[in-house]
């Protein structure tokens, strides 16, 4: 079974600064996907960024980038130039494209951007 661990329950950072959220996972699969989802107070899960395990290049989406270390089973999210709208819960998630493709989530990190 796959497990996802987020060891930082809460983090805060000043607006415009850079913050890194940590995630580790455990799997015996070689082909899988990793995700960071954002859940603002509106409750809707919003996909921030996705990484395919077979791609060595780290994914980037504007101010969001990941540091994917496959051997270490580590998948951190870096938010640059943080904005007040980045305040939310952030969840790391894992999916294997084999079978029925369910998402396995971590317990989340509550990120607060301070004005």
């Amino acid at each position, binding site marked *: 079974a796959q497990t*996802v661990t987020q060891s930082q329950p809460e983090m805060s950072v000043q607006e415009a600064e850079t913050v890194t959220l940590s995630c580790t996972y455990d799997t015996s699969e070689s082909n899988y*996907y990793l*995700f960071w989802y954002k859940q603002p107070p*509106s*409750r*809707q*899960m*919003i*996909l921030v960024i*996705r990484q395919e395990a077979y791609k060595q290049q780290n994914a980037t989406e504007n101010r969001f980038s990941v540091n994917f270390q496959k051997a270490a089973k580590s998948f951190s999210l870096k938010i640059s130039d943080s904005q007040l709208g980045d305040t939310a819960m952030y*969840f790391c*998630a894992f*999916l294997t*494209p084999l*079978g*029925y*493709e*369910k*998402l*396995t*989530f*971590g*317990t*989340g990190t509550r990120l607060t951007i301070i004005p």
Partner: protein
Amino acid sequence: DAGVTQSPTHLIKTRGQQVTLRCSPKSGHDTVSWYQQALGQGPQFIFQYYEEEERQRGNFPDRFSGHQFPNYSSELNVNALLLGDSALYLCASSLQGHNTEAFFGQGTRLTVV
């Protein structure tokens, strides 16, 4: 495109009662997955529906059941409600074989008293 819509947004039920939650998938999607998110936790997979059949199930008791209709919309039913069933229930839709592109609804907040 209305995206994934869930109803109701909130509801309160009494222990022992039954509840039905509804989900309409994003246009063009044919697969619906349900997740339970307890307070302060990450979502936990309940089950997935495709072609009107339950295709995979997480570690949830038989009190949790579902249905998918020909128009791909889905219902989640929970019988004999327990206080521990209080949670946010999220629906995610996708196109079968493309679950790396799942879209979530805003969830239904269920409170059992």
